[in-house]
C-alpha cells in the first residue's frame, strides 16, 4: 500500500516537473524570488 502511494506520488511529481523547465520546485521558487526582488530593487533605484 505504502509502496503504491510512493509510486503514485513519484509519478505525479514527474508529471508536475514535465510542465516546468526546472528540475525541482525549490529551484523554480528561488528563481522566481530572485527575478521578483531584483525587479523591485531596480524599480526602486530607478524611480524613487
Amino acid at each position, binding site marked *: 500500500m505504502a509502496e503504491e*502511494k*510512493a509510486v*503514485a*506520488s513519484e509519478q505525479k511529481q514527474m508529471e*508536475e516537473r514535465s*510542465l*516546468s*523547465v*526546472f528540475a525541482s*520546485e*525549490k529551484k*523554480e*521558487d*528561488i*528563481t*522566481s*524570488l530572485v*527575478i*521578483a*526582488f531584483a*525587479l*523591485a530593487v531596480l*524599480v*526602486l533605484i*530607478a*524611480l*524613487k
Partner: protein
Amino acid sequence: MNEERKSPVTLIIGLILLAYALILRSQNESLTPTGLVAVAEYLKTGKTIGTQISVGLWSGIIISLVGIWNLAVPAMTSKFDKLVRAPMAGIGMIMILAYVTRYYMEPIFKIWGKQAQPMLGFDMASVFGLNYILLGILLGIVWVNTIGIPGWMQAGVKTARLAMKVGVITLGAMYSITELKYLGGLSIVMVATFVMGTSLFVLWLGKLAQAERPLIGVLSAGLGVCGVSAAVAAAPVVKARGVDMAYSIGMLLLVGVVGLFVFPPVAKMVGMNELQFGAWAGTGILNSAQVAAAALIFDPNTIETLKVAEIFNITRILFLPFIVIVLAVWFAKGEEEAEKGKVSIGKVLIDKFPLFVLGFLIMFAFSSTGIFTPKGMELHGKHFYKFKIDEKKEVRTRDLKKISAFLETGAVTDPKVKAALGKLVADRQITSAEQTDLVLKAQDFTKEKDLKAAFKEADKLVQAKPATMEMMREYMMWFFAFGLIGLGMQITWQTLRQAGGKAAMIGVVAGITKATLSFFVCWLLIKGSI
C-alpha cells in the same frame, strides 16, 4: 546535435520584438499620431507606449542575442542552455501573444463593451471580465488546439508557472496592512467570516466531490476572495494546471454574472436599503467589476450603495494574503500526507511551505512599511494621495464659485461636509484624507451634474500615482499575461472535456450558499441606513 536549437527561429522572434519597439518609438516621436501610435490612440493605450517600447527593446535585444548565439553554437545540455537558451524562442513567442492580448485584444473588447452599453444596459467587457487574464488563457487554448506547440516553443511554454510565481510575489507589493485601518469594523468582521467560511467550505465540498486538489484550491480562493484575480494568485500555490484555471475562471465569471442580475431585483423585492445592499453585493458577488455594476444597477442615482459595496469589496481583496497562506499550508499538508500519512502543520510549514509564497509575504510586509510609496504620498482607500499645497492641484475658480454658492443655499445639512466644503473654498484644494471623503459625500446633497463633477474633480486633483507602484503593477501584469497564455497552451480539448463537471458543481453550490447566507446576514443583522 539538436537541429531544433540550430534553427533561426529565436533570432527571428527577437527581431520581430525589436522591430515592433523601434517602429513604435520612431512613430511616437512624430508630431501627428501615425501608424501604430494612431492605433494606440484609438484603442486608448497611448499611456502604455513607453512600456511597450522598453519591454520590446530589452526583450528584443536579449532574445536576438540568444538567437545569434544559438545559431553560432547550438544549445546543448548544460543547465544554462536548458533554462535560458532553449526556452528563449517560446518565451519570445508568448511575449508577442501577450502584446496582442494586453494592448490590442483587451482594449478592443473595452471599446466594444462601452459601445454596446446603451443597448445592453451594462458594460459587457467589464461584467464578463473580458480582460487580459481571460483573453490570455483563451488565446493559449485556441493556439494549442489549432496551431499546436512546435518543438521550438515547448521549453518556453514550460516557463509559464515561473512567470506566474514572479507575478504572485510582485502582487504582494500591491497590498498594505495600513489599508485595513481605513475600513470599518463591520466590513472586516463580516468579510473575514465570509471569506474564510467560503474558502473552507469549498475545500470541504471539493473533498466531498473527490475533485482534484489544485482545482479545489483555485476555486476556494476565487469563490472566497475576489474572483478571477484571487484564482490567478492561488494557481501556483496549489500547482494548478491550465485546465483547472480555465474551468475555475469560467465558473467564477458565470456565478458572478448570475449574481449581478439576481441580487438587485431580490434586494428591491425585500426592501433592502443602500447599506444592506452594498454590504451584500460587496460580500456575495465575486468580481470587483461585477460588484460595482450590481451596486449601480440597484442605485443608479447616488454613489452611496457603490461606496459601501466598494468598502466591503476592498476589505475582501485585502484578505487574499491570508487565504494564500491557508492554501499553501493546506496544499503542502495534503501532498505530504499522500506520501507519508498524517503530518503536523508545524512540520509542513518548515518542510514544504512554498518559498515563493514567503516572497509574496515579504513583499507584502515591505509594502506595509511604505517602502514602495514615495515620500509625501499616502494610500487612502483605493488611491494614493498627495496633500501638499500645490497651485497645480487647485480647483478651477469657476467651480469654487459654484461650490461657494451651493454652500450658501443651505442644502448641505451635515456640518462635517459643510466644514469640509468651506475649507475647500478657502484653501482652493483638498488638504486631507478625511476631507476628500467628505467632499465626495457632498454629492449626495445635490442633483446638479456640474457640481457633482466639481467634487469629483477636486478629489481627482489631489490623487497621485506613485511611479514605483505603477511600474511594479505593469511588470506584474506582464508576468501574469505571460503565465496565463502559457497555462492556456497546456489545455487541449480532451482535457477540457474530461474535467468540467466538478468545477461547475462546486462553483454553483458554493456561490449559492455564500450569496444566500450573506443575504440573510445583511438583511436581518444590518440595521440603519447611511
